[in-house]
């Protein structure tokens, strides 16, 4: 697709600067249930997002009808959109950085080269392995998905950037039943390197988890010491990520406003934004505005070091963009708490009476990132005198996320990512309010 005529038309109609963000994707997804292919989906798609500065305001438009006949509509929409904007924020189309880091590992051919047939066979095998591992496994659904996306950014200031990324996921969902109780578990590996998909390991982890939760019951309400397992911690962190956006700070909806260079968490907490992480489709040398990305510590030993900035918020705060510009604002790249030195098993042994939380449900609804308050359905295991006593479910844990960060007493060495880009190791927390019986 050639955009020269679009840039020409923009100029003729009085648009000062224009940028296109053009992405093309192909995807492949399968699911296996009872030895049969239950889902098989293939697709090719593209989308074009255009933004332009007209009379000092940024107009935007988006389309999946991608041909020259649409150019007039696109330009007219950009102008109509810009005319309604009353925000006085200064807006930018970026001329580009002098240098962009070469980021390796964004695209891995292995996942493209292996045949669909092989992927189906492996997914079927994963289902079978999980089913055969334990009599109490009653239902298994295995899935595989892969995607390839090419992104092009071009603008009227002469910037031209392009990146090709791919990703893959192989996972399994199991339901276990012991005749009295039914539980579910879910395990997956995300990578663009096909060699990372270890069928036996994925199946075993899912089944172990599903079986160990059987017979889970509520426990008495009270304050409990908590060991928040890596994925549960990542899922609780996800809705709170917006606190770190300079946009939230400037609009006065972030709890972290005014806290730069202050302690916001315990000394055990170090948080990074890492655009160069290997095998992640969120990695790359430039952000959606074309700004060069960089690795940065957001929180260093509990101290808040920076917010995430795009060009607009950086200008307002008199600083530089951190390379976190998104099409619609600000986004992190790979955002995670760094691993500590604690072994998970040692963390369990060190608890006299506490709870391991392995799953949290409803984090999209039960968290209020404006106040930091959360109250969430949880499940996991009761620990007494350093030993796992029994599985626990139908309880809620409640607290405030900033208080939680301050009450972290230890960080394990088991960093994991929640569907790609929000990561956490298991965190040991002084206490949380638990509601149960």
């Amino acid at each position, binding site marked *: 697709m050639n955009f020269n005529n679009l840039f020409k038309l923009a100029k003729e109609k009085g648009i000062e600067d224009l940028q296109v963000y053009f992405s093309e994707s192909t995807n492949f997804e399968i699911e296996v249930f009872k030895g049969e292919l239950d*889902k098989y989906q293939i697709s*090719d798609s593209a989308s074009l997002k255009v933004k332009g500065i007209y009379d000092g305001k940024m107009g935007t438009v988006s389309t999946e009808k991608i041909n020259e006949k649409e150019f007039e509509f696109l330009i007219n929409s950009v102008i*109509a959109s810009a005319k309604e904007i009353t925000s006085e924020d200064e807006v930018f189309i970026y001329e580009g950085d002098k240098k962009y880091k070469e980021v390796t590992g964004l695209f891995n051919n292995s996942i493209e080269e292996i045949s669909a047939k092989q992927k189906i066979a492996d997914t079927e095998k994963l289902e079978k392995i999980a089913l055969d591992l334990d009599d109490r496994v009653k239902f298994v659904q295995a899935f595989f998905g892969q995607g390839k996306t090419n992104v092009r950014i071009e603008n009227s200031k002469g910037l031209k950037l392009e990146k090709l990324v791919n990703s893959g996921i192989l996972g399994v969902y199991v339901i276990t039943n012991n005749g009295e109780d*039914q539980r579910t578990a879910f395990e997956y590996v995300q990578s663009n390197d096909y060699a990372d998909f270890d069928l036996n390991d994925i199946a075993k982890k899912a089944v172990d988890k599903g079986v160990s939760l059987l017979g889970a019951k509520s426990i008495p309400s009270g304050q409990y010491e908590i060991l928040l397992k890596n994925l549960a911690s990542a899922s609780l962190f996800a809705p709170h990520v917006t606190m770190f956006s300079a946009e939230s700070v400037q609009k006065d909806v972030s709890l972290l406003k005014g806290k730069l260079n202050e302690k916001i968490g315990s000394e055990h907490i170090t948080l990074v934004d890492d655009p160069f992480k290997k095998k992640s489709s969120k990695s790359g040398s430039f952000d959606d505005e074309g700004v060069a990305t960089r690795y940065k510590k957001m929180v260093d030993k509990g101290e808040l070091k920076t917010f995430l900035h795009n060009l607009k918020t950086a200008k307002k705060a008199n600083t530089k963009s951190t390379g976190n510009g998104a099409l619609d604002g600000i986004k992190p790249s790979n955002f995670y708490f760094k691993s500590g030195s604690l072994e998970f098993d040692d963390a369990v042994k060190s608890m006299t009476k506490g709870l391991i939380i392995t799953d949290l*449900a409803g984090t*999209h609804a039960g968290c209020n990132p404006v106040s930091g308050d959360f*109250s969430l*359905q949880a499940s996991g295991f009761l620990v007494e005198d350093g030993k796992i006593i029994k599985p626990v479910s*139908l*309880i809620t844990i409640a607290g405030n996320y900033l208080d939680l960060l301050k009450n972290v007493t230890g960080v394990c060495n088991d960093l994991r990512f929640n569907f790609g880009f929000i990561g956490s190791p298991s965190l040991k927390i002084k206490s949380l309010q638990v509601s149960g019986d």
Partner: protein
Amino acid sequence: MLDKKLIKKVLDTCLESSADFAEIFIEDKFSTTAKLLSSKIENVTNTKLFGIGIRIADGYNSVYGYTNSKEEKDLIKLANNLKASFPGESKGITFELGKLQKGDRHKAKRLPDEVDIKEKVDLLFRADKAARDYNDEINQVHSRFQDYVQNVWIANTEGTYVNDTRVRTRLAINAVAANEETKQSGFNGPGGSYGFEFYSDVINVEEEAKEAARIAVTMLHADPSPSGKMPVVIDNGFGGVIFHEAVGHSLEATSVAKGTSVFTGKKNQKVASDLVTAIDDGTIENAWGSSTFDDEGCKQQKRVLLNKGVLTSYMIDKLNAKRMNDKPTNSGRRQSYKFQPTSRMSNTYIDNGESTFDEIIANTEYGLYAKKMGGGSVNPATGDFNFAVGEGYIIRDGKIAEPVRGASLVGTGKDALMKVDMVANNLSRAQGMCGSVSGAIPTDVGQPTIRVSEMTVGGTKGAN
């Protein structure tokens, strides 16, 4: 949109395989969104979505693919790629596409493209002003306007050939109240299958904005919620999200057909208290979750899910009907051409009972009154659910007492349904976006005020 002959040709290509069913779904959607923050318009965007999905099936086994292209060569290529999954002998199925049937219900009076963008943006300013005027403690308002026209054409090898036009609009207002100590937010998001007349004939923008502000300010002055087991009174309207999450999802064929739902095999059995009659109705005039046809080209209908506590119907799409040996209930829905359709809810609610709101409160010695619910989720295999309470109060000695915040409700669907011991006569519905395997779709939830005799309430304050 696409020439009928080309549609026929694509479907015929799909049947050059051992498949017994093929379907084409063409979507052309134009949406406009506008966002306001800090009393300024931040963003206005037009979006055109266009794509074509092709599905081929043999029995309940299906394959799906989509593309943005409407070129014959691309569509035939996609059909060929998909049909390779059914390499057996052709079943020799022949069919003809009839006359195009057009959806003729839920008509909009003022279509989105006939309304100037200035009028749409003005709603956001009005909502912002009304929310801020409500109280000095309101220090931020985000509001978002959306309208769209989604045109779909669905044709299949059973001869279905329909075109449905869904016009919808929604205004979502989020008000934040703040003091030295904390910030609390209140949300209200009315919407419907209407054109712009929604804002003059159906709702009052200022009243809706004030409601969001009222919740935020009330919660600013609320105490932390107590925790523990207690009776819970859940108010009408969005309170119906409890039924949607805790029961509705488990009645969708998506989980019933494979035997993973707690309600599999429970048809004609008692699963709820006698007081509970529940309905899913995709035909309610101009409701947010209504349409003339579902996304498999079948006429939307009304389904009685539970009748006086007895399970009478699941929600079933075409392919799951085959897996279940049951009839479809025309419940096939999807977010867009990027998703295969599956069984989904439309407008789902618990029907009116015989108590009054006042009787329910007066008969509750101590408990939680959940006036506004937030979102929630459920695990259909266990029935475990959770909900956030957006606005809550303690009920003490049969009277509504102090407001409480940060409460959540957890339980299992079956338990909660059995424990419904009072149902009022004040049914109302509210709008939401429901996310599941076939994407995010507009659905209404609803109920009259109900009381659940015992539920686990999670809060930051210890048990009383």
